Every structure is written in C-alpha cells, then in structure tokens.
C-alpha cells in the first residue's frame, strides 16, 4: 500500500515539469492553481489589457517573496495603465515580443515555456506575466523578501577587524564577496540543488588562481548531490566531504566574509548556500582550523604567540583528563611528592575510580554545555549558576569528586573553546573520551598509542585531494611561514603550494624601512 501511494503522489509532478505551456491562458492558470493546491500565498491577477480590452493577461507571483511595490509600479501599472492606449490586438501574435521588448521595465526578464519553469520562477520570487494565446511567459525578477541584515557574526568574533557577517540571503553574501575582491577573475556560478528545495548554491573562486582540478572536483561533487532539500550548508558539507568516518572536518566553514575572501585569494573555493550564513571553503587543512581571522589583523609576533597557545590548548583539551587519569592510577611515581600528597588528600573519601570520576564530570559538562546552547537566553544564567555551584562546589564538598578533577575538567572545557573553528572543537571533544578510555586501561602507554593512531589517521586524510596535514606532512618549507608561525605580511609572498598550483607568487615582498636619510643632511649633522 505505501508503495502505491508514493507512486501516485510523484507521478503528476513529473508530468507538469516538462509540460509545455498551452495557448489558452485559462487552461494554464487552472493547471497552475490545481498543482499548487490553491495555495493562499500565490497571487494570480487576471485582467484585460489593450485599447479594447481584448488582451487577456495574467500576472502571477508569490506574496512575501516579491517586492510588492516593484510588481505594482513596473508590472501592473505598465500593463494596465501605461499601455492602455496601445492597440495590442491589431498586431496579433507578436504581442508577447512587443510587451517584452517595449513595455516591461523590469531589469532581468526570462522566457518560460514549460510548466516546471513556471513553478520555479513563481516560487522563487519572480513575477510571471502570461498572455493569452502565447506559448511563452515572461518572468521578471522582483525577488525581495524579509531578511536579516548584515550583522556581526555570532561565531568567530574579533577584537580588531571587520565585523560584517554573512546572512541567509545568497545575493547579499555574493555581494559581500564582490565588495572584497573586485577582480574580473572572481567567478560566481550558481546552481539550484535539491529536488524540492531548489536551493541556490554558488561556487565562488578566483579563476586562474584556484587549482582547476579542484574546481572541477567541486562541481563534480555538487552535481552528484541527489537530495530532497538543502536547508543549510552543513547538508552540502556532509555530501561533498572526502571522508565520512573521521572526527575531523575536511571542509572549513565561516561566517566571516574576510576569512572566506582570504581563502579565495589563496586559491581555495568557496561554496555559498542560500539560506545559510555559513559559507564553506575547500580544500581545508589541519592548520586552517588554528588560524583565526585576527591573526592577520594583528602584528605577526603576537599572532605567532597566540597561535602557539591555540596548539597548546588543542592538546590540553584533548589530553588533560586522560593524562590525569593515567598519572594518578598508573604512574604515581611521576608526580612530584608534594603534589601527589595533595592529590591523594583530595581523593580521600572519593567513592569512584579516577576514570569514572572524570567521565562523570566530563559528561556533566557536556550536558551543561548542550543545555546552555539550546536553552532560551533567559534561562542561560540559571544554568550557569546551577553548573558552577552544584558541580563545582557542592560536588566537591559532598566528596563525590575531588577538587583536582574539577580543575582538570574546567581547564579542558576552557581549552576546547580556544579553537577558532567550532567544528574543530567538536572533534577534540569527541576524541577526549576515547583517550580517557585508553588512559584508564593502559595508562600513558595507551595515550601514546592513541596519539600514534591519531597521527596515522590524520596523515591518511585528504581534503579535495590535498593532504590534510600539509604543510607538515608532506613537509613544505615555504608554507611554514603561515602554519604554526605567522611571518610578517611582507614575507607571505607565495600562496600555499598544494592549494593553488598556479600563480604561486602573490606579491614581491619587501620589508618596510624608514626612508633613507639623505647625505646632505648627514653631513650637516656631523658639522
């Protein structure tokens, strides 16, 4: 039974999409109405135009997706008032072309000849004008809907640097890109993806800089997507990534136009998905997740230092609980005596093994964090009080966990938020539990084993053909300038070798120097 019903529902749709428009306006409108099930947001304005009122015209648009003022001023007003005196009916058959060429004042007009295209245009915000007796209809671009303005991004905020963020509207986002790179080689190609949602997905790259093979690969992977709907760029990311079974993201995403623009200038390819402020960037490397936008806005020495702190935080977030477990349950001899004494004093009366204690606290923290993200903002402060008091203080005082464990968990929690990329922080948080199990069963040996497996796994990963660990493995000396270290800007003269294989040189770097003092002045001084 379900099979039957499914087939029944699908059949009519397939028929309409390839159906040519008929000559009779009323038949077309009837079919249009029927297919849409008389949806109330569709406006169908049917009227008579021309000197004698003999021309039957219908204007179709979706209320809410169009700028009503434009529809009124440039479509309805033109057709109903301004060409009232034109003897339309005398010219016969060429009415359509005349109206399109001489009357319509819209900027972007497309011809439609099938039912499917009709739906696409009306439902994506265009206004369609249909003439009785014509097998064509014109779609005028009147798209304009309520949307969020350009605001400061909620993730990846900076102290110094641009505060603009992407929005949910594709056009705004492409405009933000254009405003940053006014080069004729910045190519933006859009393609609807999703059988039902028909979401516009734009591929943006710098032609001639981006590796053509990677560009082709991106198109290829996007073409392969066969899905009902794309509701966020996360859908696309999951469908085009190289490896599904890895905790590490192989596609970068950002809400910041400057970050994406910088990536494009390096030869990467951005994928903007309509309806999502998160723009994807490929290929993504391991080191990219440690580079924050602000690294490039601040001085080089400071950025290098901060970047090293991020790497440190990465290891802290991943390994602190496991190292604590390993040391306190297997390698007590490695802890300095006085620290051991104070640790064991704290553990007096704690009922659980260190591993269970750590697991308990980590899970509690994850619950708290998740609750903090999902709960309405007003409840957020209540949650943090409960978290801080109940977990931090009361649990220690009740002797359920040791205070050292609270310190370990807090350090881990804070460190995991240092990563500039949220998607990367998630992978660290997942790995942490694996390492804790290894530490609880095999001690430091287990942790080392885990690190070896992790390194092997990372080396095996690729993002659109580029080794994930480059420029570390394979080691590229020239690209070290912007990996763990951040060299002064005038030294960042080449693009990453493996990402853009053409036009490696960016600029001729020369260190800024104070102007040379002229000789005459020098002589004067000596005198």
């Amino acid at each position: 039974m379900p099979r039957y019903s499914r087939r029944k529902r699908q059949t009519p749709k397939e028929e309409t999409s390839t159906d040519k428009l008929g000559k009779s306006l009323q038949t077309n409108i009837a079919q249009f109405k029927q297919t849409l099930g008389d949806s109330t947001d569709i406006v169908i304005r049917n009227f008579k135009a021309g000197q004698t009122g003999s021309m039957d015209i219908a204007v179709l648009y979706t209320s809410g997706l169009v700028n009503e003022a434009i529809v009124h001023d440039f479509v309805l007003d033109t057709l109903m008032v301004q060409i009232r005196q034109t003897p339309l009916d005398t010219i016969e058959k060429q009415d359509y072309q005349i109206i399109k060429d001489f009357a319509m004042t819209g900027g972007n007009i497309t011809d439609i000849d099938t039912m499917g295209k009709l739906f696409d245009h009306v439902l994506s915000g265009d206004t369609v004008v249909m003439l009785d007796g014509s097998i064509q209809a014109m779609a005028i671009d009147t798209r304009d809907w309520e949307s969020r303005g350009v605001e400061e991004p909620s993730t990846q905020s900076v102290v110094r640097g641009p505060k603009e963020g992407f929005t949910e509207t594709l056009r705004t986002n492409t405009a933000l890109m254009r405003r940053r790179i006014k080069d004729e080689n910045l190519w933006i190609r859009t393609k609807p993806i999703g059988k039902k949602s028909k979401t516009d997905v734009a591929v943006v790259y710098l032609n001639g800089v981006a590796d053509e093979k990677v560009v082709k690969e991106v198109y290829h992977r996007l073409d392969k997507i066969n899905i009902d709907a794309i509701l966020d760029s996360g859908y696309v990311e999951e469908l085009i990534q190289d490896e599904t079974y890895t905790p590490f993201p192989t596609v970068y995403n950002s809400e910041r136009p400057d970050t994406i623009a910088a990536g494009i200038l390096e030869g990467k390819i951005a994928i903007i998905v309509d309806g999502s402020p998160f723009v994807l960037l490929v290929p993504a490397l391991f080191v990219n997740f440690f580079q924050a936008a602000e690294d490039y806005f601040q001085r080089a020495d400071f950025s290098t230092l901060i970047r090293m702190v991020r790497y440190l935080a990465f290891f802290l977030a991943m390994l602190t609980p496991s190292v604590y477990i390993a040391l306190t349950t297997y390698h007590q001899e490695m802890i300095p005596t006085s620290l051991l004494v104070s640790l064991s004093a704290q553990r007096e009366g704690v009922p659980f093994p260190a591993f269970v204690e750590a697991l308990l606290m980590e899970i509690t923290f994850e619950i708290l964090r998740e609750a903090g993200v999902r709960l309405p903002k007003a409840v957020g402060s209540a949650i943090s009080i409960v978290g801080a008091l109940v977990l931090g203080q009361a649990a220690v005082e009740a002797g359920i966990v040791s205070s050292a464990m609270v310190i370990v968990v807090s350090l881990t929690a804070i460190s995991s938020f240092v990563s500039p990329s949220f998607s990367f922080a998630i992978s660290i948080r997942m790995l942490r539990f694996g390492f804790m199990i290894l530490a609880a069963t095999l001690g430091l040996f287990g942790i080392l084993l885990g690190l070896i497996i992790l390194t092997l796994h990372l080396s095996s990963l690729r993002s659109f053909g580029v080794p994930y660990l480059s420029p570390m493995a394979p080691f590229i000396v020239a690209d070290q300038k912007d990996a763990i270290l951040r060299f002064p800007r005038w030294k960042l003269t080449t693009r990453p070798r493996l990402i853009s294989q053409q036009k490696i040189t960016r600029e001729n770097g020369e260190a800024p120097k104070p102007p040379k003092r002229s000789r005459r002045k020098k002589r004067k001084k000596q005198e």
Partner: protein
Amino acid sequence: MKQKPLLKLATLSLCALLLSGCWSKRELNELGIVTAIGIDLQDDQYKVTVQVINPSEVSSQEMTTRTAVSTYTAVGNSIFEAIRRLVTQTPRQVYMAHVREIIFGEEMAKKGIGKALDFLSRDHEMRTDFHLTVAEGMEAEDLLKVLTPLERIPAEKAYSSIKAGEKYWAPVQSVKISDVLSAMLSEGDNPVLTGMRVVGDPEQGSNLDNVEKVNSPTRIKISRLAVFQKDHLAGWLTENQSKGYSYIVDKVHSSAEFVPCKDADKGGITLEVFDSTSSMEAVVQAGNPKVTISINIEAGIAEVECPLKLSETAVIHQVEKQFEKRMNNMVTGTVEVLQQDLKSDVLGFGELIHRTDKTYWKTVQEDWENIFPDVETDVKVNVKIKRTGTIVDSYQKDMEG
C-alpha cells in the same frame, strides 16, 4: 565491503589491547605513600619501619589533632618480607616510589648494610633518588617517630635539610644508592653516609606537642658523616672533619670558614666560600705511595671583627695566608683521622693509586687496608679572596679610636 575484513581485524586487535583491563591500576586513595624507611636489626632479623603520609593531614588547612605521618614496624627474614608483612597493620598498600630517606640504625650499620642494599637497588617500585643515612647512636625506628616543625613530613624535612646542608654548609652530603654501591664495590674506595641524630628526648618527639611549641624540644639534626669500611660503619667524623672531607672530594658548593684575628680576643674574620675545586695526585716513589691534595678556594669576606685595612692588597694576602693555614689544618686533620683512627679509605686513595701505578697497586691490592694508614699525604690549599662585600675597610679601628 571489500575493506571490511581489515577493519574487523583492526577493531579486534584494538579490543585485545583492552583485555589487559586496568592491570596494576591503583587509585591514589588506595596508596600508603611511604616517605622514609628505617632498617634495624632485631635478633638476626630485619626490623623495617616505614613512615607513611597521612595525606589529608598534610594538606589540610585546619589544625587537627592527628599527626601528619604514621610509622609502622614489622619484622621479617628479609626486608621485602618485612615490608609485605606491614599490610597486617597498615590499611593500605605500601607505596615506595616516593621514598626520600633510607635510614639505617647504628647497630645495623655496624653489622653491615651490604645485604640490605640489594633490595633497595633491585626493587622496581623505588626510584633511585632517595638519600641513604645512618641514625646516630639509636635505632632508625626511634628516629622516624620524631615529628618536625615547619615541614609536616619528617622525611621531607630531612631530605631538604640534607640538600640545604650540602649546598650552604658542606659537612653533609646527599648520598644516593648508586654512590654507595660504586664506592663499596670498588677496591680502594669506601662509602660515607650522612648521619642523622635526635636532639632531645625521642619519646617526646613522637608527640604532637613537639611541634606545637615555637622551640621544638626534640629535633632531628643532620651535621656529620658516617664513615664506612666497605659495608659496615667504621666511625664518625666531627663536623669540621666532615667539612674537610667535603673539601677533599670536591663536593663543596658553598660554605663559611672562620679564622681568629692575630689578637685572638678581638674576634675573627669569616669567609664565605663560594667556589672550591680540588684535585688529588698520586705518585709511587720507591714503593712508597704519596698523595698530593690541592684545593683551590675562591671566597669573599663575609664578616670582619679585626681592625684591618682591607683596601690594601697586602692585607688581603695576609688574610688569604691565614685561611690557607687554617684550611690546611682542617684537611690534614680529616686525613689523619681517616688514616689513623678509622682506617677507612673513603677518600679514594686506593682508586687513585690504581689509576697512576697499576703494577704497584697489584702488589698492595690485597693488603690495602693496612697500607692506607701509612700513605704519605701532602695538602696544598690556595685561597683567593675575590670580594670584600659592600664595605671595604673594617670600621672596628674607628670604633676603638
């Protein structure tokens, strides 16, 4: 699906790793952390005393009426047996990785510590950075019972006392097990151990009120060296002799030396020794070994009570000479005691002669203990005063005038 067998294999082998499941896992609160081990003899058996930390007392902020450490004693045919037998008294497994001090009772030391060292160097749990010491004139058990002020853990007190003593005063040395073994096993060398003694009543020292007073009536004092002949205690050096020993074997980091003024009742001059290097040379002439000990000392003037004009080089030289003489006496005294009274070659003369003249050494090797006392020694001390401190001339003269 083709790759699945490999994945299965990998998963299985990873699971196999987990089969060992928490092997040798020990939670912190299951450990009795031992900080010091005392070894005595009792009727041909070993009497082992351990000082176990009471962690919550050590790190608690509040005053409690419980002591920071507890001692447990057990007797066994071997040290290991005695330690395992301790479980009959302690609530926790004895954990020995953090042992700071091994203390031998004097009686035990006289009978020989060689056999006991086997366990200490063989046991895998122990680190090798603990100090070996001898309880002077008492059993190690009694010494371990004394509570100490300032440092809550007595063994920790002893450990840092020895470290500080070695660094700033020189008569004590932090002797590790490797030092003792190598000195004991080489012919022509003997070990020394630092001595610890209790000043005051040991019984009172184990009471908590010992540390409740500003001036603790019972204290642990670490001031001199125990000289061993192979593995048994030969005797004790005085504090000055111990210092002399440290100068000879080049173990002085820093110290203070006093010499009286010419006019003895006016007081004296004290030097702060901040560098001392020594070297020994041996020659064998006509079957008679002779050892030359040369010591170079760099020092600064720390305190002056004599009316001296230190701004004059001649005066400085004069002071240097005075000190050279004094140091010479001290070092010669040490050598004499070691040669005549204790008859133990802790200075390593034998080793030195072995290295210089192998053929001669072969002839005396067997009989070295008897030949050592007759070895001729020559001590050369060179003192160099580098600084006079923040004031130059002494103001004592002006005070008199």
